[in-house]
């Protein structure tokens, strides 16, 4: 699969005298994959996200999105149309007075013709299962519902990639699950590339690939299984391991070896009940 985002040697700092928030970061995002960037608060992962659609310009290095460099000012709106972004606070990104208005906001900005807008609007709302709320006002929606509306607004723009910048961190467990389900749907059914930026490892285990960041540097890349082989490293940089990983480690210390290391609760349960099975 071709790369849709290439980041090379990217560095950035907020104040000229300050320390580097991003320190020579090089990474790429492949088309169609679900990539999770994990790291503790202040590891630079949110700053990295803002570099990917040109909200922040790199101090050094380049960010190239499907052939367009973010430094190229004439391409910035093309880039933003291809890179959708969901932010952390559901309230502070809801622009429209109703769900319909909010989903349409992005399309209005990019000059989508009205007829097509209406069609995409219905389609996007159906996809995130919010069609019943089309005329609702934002203050009547839960956090999870607002984030799904935000996703609909992005899907309607038919982007290449959706970046979720801690998009589930302010939600209750139910809202988090709904948003996660929607993300899976977009990734698997729509073939949309998903880049989720998170410190929640329970969310990260669903990704195809993980990138671990600490103090502005990429310190490790790999599949979830590979990354969680070195659970100690994740704990060292201040991340909270998923329950299944912790449990497996404790069981292993007690001498209970499982054939494969489970990452989710379901995987753990399956590993346990088949442990003594000889079939």
């Amino acid at each position, binding site marked *: 699969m071709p790369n849709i985002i290439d980041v090379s040697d990217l560095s950035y700092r907020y104040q000229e005298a300050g320390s580097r928030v991003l320190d020579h970061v090089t990474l790429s995002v492949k088309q169609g994959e679900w990539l999770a960037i994990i790291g503790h608060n202040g590891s630079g992962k949110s700053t990295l996200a803002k570099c990917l659609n040109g909200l922040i310009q790199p101090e050094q290095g380049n960010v190239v999105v499907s052939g367009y460099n973010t430094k190229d000012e004439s391409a910035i709106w093309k880039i*933003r149309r291809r890179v959708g972004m969901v932010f952390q606070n559901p*309230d*502070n990104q809801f622009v429209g007075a109703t769900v319909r*208005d909010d989903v*349409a906001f992005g399309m209005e900005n*990019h000059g989508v013709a009205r007829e097509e807008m209406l069609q995409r609007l219905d389609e996007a709302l159906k996809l995130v299962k919010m069609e019943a709320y089309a005329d609702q006002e934002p203050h009547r929606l839960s956090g999870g519902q607002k984030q799904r509306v935000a996703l609909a607004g992005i899907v309607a723009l038919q982007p290449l990639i959706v970046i979720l910048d801690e998009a589930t961190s302010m939600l209750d467990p139910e809202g988090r699950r709904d948003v996660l389900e929607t993300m899976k749907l977009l990734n698997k059914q729509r073939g949309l590339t998903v880049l989720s930026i998170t410190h929640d490892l329970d969310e990260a285990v669903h990704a195809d690939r993980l990138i671990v960041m600490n103090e502005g540097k990429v310190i490790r890349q790999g599949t979830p299984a590979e990354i969680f082989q070195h659970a100690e490293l994740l704990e060292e940089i201040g991340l909270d391991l998923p329950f299944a990983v912790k449990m497996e480690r404790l069981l292993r210390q007690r001498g209970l070896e499982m054939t494969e290391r489970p990452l989710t609760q379901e995987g753990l349960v399956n590993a346990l009940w088949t442990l003594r099975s000889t079939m």
Partner: protein
Amino acid sequence: MFNLVIGQYVPMESLVHRLDPRSKLISMFLFVIIVFLANNWLSYGLLILFCLASITASKLPFQFIYRGLRSVFFIVFLTFILNLFFTNGGLLLFSWGWLHIYLNGLIQSIFISFRILVIIVITTLLTLTTSPIEITDGLESLLHPLKRIKLPVHEFALMMSISLRFIPTLLEETEKIIKAQAARGSDFTTGSIKSRFKAVVPLLVPLFVSAFKRAEELAMAMEARGYHGDEGRTKLHRLVWNNRDTVLLLILAIMTIALILFRY
């Protein structure tokens, strides 16, 4: 304030609801102006008739209109009393000490009260039958010509709709801060006016800080979603001017002429 701005709109199916917001806005402004032309029973009768007809056409239960009127009853009452006692002329109806009520005063105060009431009824009817989005869209469209003289009409409309959208959010937040401060022993309800005023400060500061933070995040989210001003922008809402809108304006025009004729 909350109820005045957004809590009012009642979504329903009626002729008045279906009217284009532009025709409703123009009619409302025109109506408020021509009310001042009325100076006799006939013209007031015509205005009241128009109000009743509009209410009937809106299919709104009368209690909604009444709710809107309730808050201004005091003002109406006050103007009634003032006009009653301070307008002289005509037959002396009542006299007690230095208080005199003349026939002209009575008629005048009834007229003035009706004048205020019909204005309130028509403006209430507009906000009851037109959603805030429609009003904003209507205003943007009506003010569109002012763009030529470089007035930021689109930005103004966007600001208005974002403010409306954030009113409930900020109210919720205010409530949360009040509770948080009350939990730490802050007292808003007792004490002298000065101490109550002082208690409001620790409420306003966090509210402002958070509002600024929200504004910053919202601006970034809007930029990420491709907002770059009015240029090349399409709109989801389309305003359609129908025959019924032209008819409404015609009715208003006829009423204006009638009121001028009735005056003499």
